[in-house]
Structures are given as C-alpha cells and as structure tokens.
C-alpha cells in the first residue's frame, strides 16, 4: 500500500537523524538504577519506620514527639512491597502492603494498593492515632484503614502524565496532630492532604529539576514547620543543597535555605530533625549540613567521609545526642553538641538502618 510506504518514509525521515547520547544515557540509567535500589532499601527502611511509629518510644528516633494515644497491644509492622511472591512478572507490577503481627511474626492479609508500570513501592507512613496508613504510588496516595485492612480511593496529586514530572510521589510526612499528610513528589511539589477528608490541597512548589527533585520531607516536633529537601544536581566538584521550610498553618513556603558543599559526586538529600526541634541535619553529597530551625540558617558542612550510599539516610538518636549517617562504607556518627563526626562504623553494602527506641 502506497500510504504505508508513505508513513514508513515519514517516520524514518522524522526520527532517523535523532541521536541518543549513549554515555549520558548510561550514566542516567545507572543513576536510575541506584534510585531503584534506594526504593528497595526504602521499602525496608519504611517498614522499620512504620514499626517505630507504632511504638511511642520509638518516635524520637525519627524526630517526632511521642503520640498521646494508647499503643496497640502488639505493634503491627507494615511492609510496602511490589511483586510479592518473587519473580519477574512483567513491567506492570502489583503494589502491596502486608501487615505483620510483631508479637507472633505472622503476616496478615496482603492489601493491594494498585498497579503501576515499574513504579514499585514508594513511601509509607502511619497517622499518630494508628488508624490510617498512607502509601504513595504513581501520582497518587492511597489511605488504608488499619482496622479493616482495606484501601480507600487513591488520592490523585497533580498530573499523572505517564512519563511526566510528578509520576512518583516520593515521600510522606504526617503532622504530629495527624491532621495533614504532606506528600513530596518527583516534580518538587509538596501536596497537603487533609486526613479528615482525604482531599489534596494546592501543591506547594519547593523547586528542583526533572527526576532529581524529590528529597525528603520532615515536620518539626511542634508541628509548625515542614522541611522539604530538593535533591541536588551535583557535579564532581560541588553540590548545591536546598531546603524549603513550609508553614503548616498556612501551607506556604518560606525562603529556601541554600548552601553549597564543595565536594560533589552524589545525589540524594535526606533530612532529620533533633527531638528538641532546634536543628535539622541535611545530607548533601558526602556532607551533612546542620540548619538552625530558629533562624533557618545553614551551618558549616560536616564531612562524614565516603559518598553517602543510596539514600544518604540520616537518623537521630531518641536522646538527640547523635546523628547517624549512612555512607558508602557504613554509618558515621555525628555529635550534635559539637557537630563533629566520630569514627565511622564500617558495614559493607549497608542499605538502610534504624535505631532501637
């Protein structure tokens, strides 16, 4: 058919001159792969954090205040995973949350929270009253009723263009009063969701560039400010750090806190806040920058040695005295009193960690 030939010719003419930059592509694919590994590690970390949330005394470990409610008799561990059962089943995957009774170690019924293309698990968080688990998916957040184990209607946040920005919701933080869920997505937007109605509010832009934007979001123990990090685009010499404070009363962003660390080579920007709420610690490249929350000013970067591995995860002990940072070679402690690093603890291929209550 002549028109098939015409179409063939037109398609070739349109794209045959297009070139892919192979070296750049290889770098991007590797970076995306590390990101995937990070997601896998996060699934484990999220489970540990979920456990921590279920145990009041453990809350200090993630920088949030003890919850006032009575804890359940046996805390439930929620694990967010994909393709349960193992084996590659194609690019469209099932995302599943599995509750585990920590007293007996027995898993409960799997809760299916949708399917997505190569999306895998995102983040998981539990409201302080323990009644709702929120999990992120592609462009969505799904609430799960923990009493019945049933997922609610996914809450759409922003655009869901298949390969556009905002595809992944990256991280969740819930205010200590449990009223607002903040979702940081890949497009560098923070969407507040009212837990009373499960409706999203207007997104708050915290900046960033495609596919690199999402970092982490945490809320101060007093619940007044959320801090969202933007993953830096590093070159070999430097990394620009960026943290945006958000007033939870008005859902408006404050002036971004910007700083540059002079050693580059890694992306990922995680944040943790001391239990007293006075200092936020932000990982950027192989450094940790303390930020005074009273003035939102960054201090001198603390070099922790070695590139942060995966997430560059940072966790502060419940007593607030030490921050532990995941590096390429293990975990490095930082004294929060002096902001100096201690001797690194070497652990080969560490992926994620948590601190006992």
């Amino acid at each position: 058919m002549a028109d098939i030939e015409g179409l063939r010719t037109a398609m070739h003419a349109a794209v045959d001159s297009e070139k892919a930059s192979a070296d750049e592509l290889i770098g991007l694919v590797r970076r995306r792969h590390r990101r995937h590994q990070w997601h896998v590690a996060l699934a484990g970390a999220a489970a540990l954090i979920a456990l921590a949330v279920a145990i009041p005394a453990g809350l200090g470990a993630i920088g949030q205040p003890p919850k006032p409610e009575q804890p359940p008799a046996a805390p439930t561990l929620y694990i967010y995973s994909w393709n349960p059962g193992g084996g590659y089943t194609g690019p469209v995957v099932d995302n599943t949350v599995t509750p585990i009774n920590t007293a007996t170690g027995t898993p409960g019924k799997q809760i299916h929270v949708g399917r997505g293309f190569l999306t895998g698990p995102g983040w998981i968080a539990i409201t302080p009253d323990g009644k709702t688990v929120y999990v992120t998916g592609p462009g969505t957040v799904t609430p799960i009723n923990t009493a019945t184990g049933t997922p609610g209607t996914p809450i759409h946040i922003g655009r869901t263009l298949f390969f556009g920005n905002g595809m992944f919701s990256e991280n969740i933080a819930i205010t200590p009063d449990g009223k607002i869920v903040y979702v940081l997505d890949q497009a560098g937007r923070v969407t507040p969701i009212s837990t009373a109605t499960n409706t999203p509010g207007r997104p708050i832009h915290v900046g960033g560039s495609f596919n690199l934007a999402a970092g982490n979001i945490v809320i101060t123990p007093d619940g007044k400010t959320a801090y969202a990090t933007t993953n830096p685009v590093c070159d070999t010499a430097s990394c620009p750090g960026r943290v945006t404070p958000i007033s939870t009363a008005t859902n408006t962003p404050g002036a971004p806190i910007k700083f540059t660390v002079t050693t580059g080579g890694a992306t990922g920007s995680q944040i943790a806040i001391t239990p007293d709420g006075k200092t936020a610690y932000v990982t950027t490249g192989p450094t940790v920058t303390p930020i005074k929350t009273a003035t939102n000013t960054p201090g001198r970067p603390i070099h922790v040695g070695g590139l942060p591995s995966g997430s560059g995860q940072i966790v502060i002990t419940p007593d607030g005295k030490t921050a532990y940072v995941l590096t390429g070679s293990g975990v490095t402690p930082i004294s929060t009193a002096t902001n100096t690093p201690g001797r690194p603890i070497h652990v080969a291929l560490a992926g994620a960690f948590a601190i006992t209550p």
Partner: protein
Amino acid sequence: MRSGETEASFEDFVRARSDSLLRTALLLTGQRRAEAEDLLQLALERAYRHWPRICGSEGPERYVRRILASASADRWRRLARRPEQAIPIGGGPVVPDRTAEIADRDYLLRALAALPLRQRAVLVLRYFDDLSEAETAAMLGCSLGTVKSQAARGLARLRITADSPTALPTGQVPGRRNPEAARKEAADG
C-alpha cells in the same frame, strides 16, 4: 556484584542500539523528546537490573523493545481511565527537522502524533519496527484481531488527514478522537 565484563557489555549495547531505540520511543510518544528519553531510560534501567541474565539470552534488544511497547500500552490504558490534559501540538511543525518543509510528511507525522495511543503504537511497531502482526500483538499484550483493526483504523485516519490536511486540528488531545476527522469519517461512511 556486577563484573566489569557485564558492565562493559551493557555499555556496548547502549552505545550500539540507543539511537535506534530512541527513535522508536520518539514515535511512540508522538515525537516528544523528553518523554521518549524518559521512556528509554526506564526500559534500559529495567534491562540493566537483569543484565547478567538477559545479556546472554536471545536478545536484550527485544527485551528493551518489549518494555517500550508495554509502557505505551500501559499509558493508553491509564489514559482511557483518566484523560490526559491537552497538549497543543499545532502552531508549527511537530518535527523540527529538515523534512518539516515537506508538507505531506509533516501532516502525516502530526496525524500520527494525534492518533489514539494504541493506534499509534500499532503503526509504529508494524511499520517502523517492521514487526509482524503477531509480534506486535505480543508486545502490546493484546489480540491479533485488535492489532489488525487498530492498524486499519489508524491508516484510515491518516488517509483522511492526508486527503484533507485542514482536518488536523492544532490543539489535538492525544488519546482522544479527533472531532473534525470523526465528523468527516461519519460523512464519508
């Protein structure tokens, strides 16, 4: 751990095949370069994850192409449930290359980009990647009959556009029926 040999084999593959894969991705995404690049990265990352297994098998390229096709299949299913917002493609040639001045090709490509995603994917796989109907069906996860009917409908839509270039709107919503063409089709039929 990945061996240096595995890494080198992946790099060789990307260097050799990325241009060709990108071209297919471009056509699948209606020549939207950013989307095409992202689609390709996703497919390659998936392949990279399993590289030690697939590099020795029948063909990593087939694996990557399958993911490209699955992705566009997933995309149209998603859009069927939740329509995508309008992205104006008019106002200038969609393809800013040397052939843009050739009016027929330009119209054909704009018409291709304006086709529903499934029809576009079928035409790209059948006539750009030169896959058989059965292979196309397998890649897209649909039946042979669907491939046949979608190819016929897609070509018919292109024909209408070629006959009447003004039928192509400037603000076509991908994945939605072209109202002008639909009216004309109804009038013709």
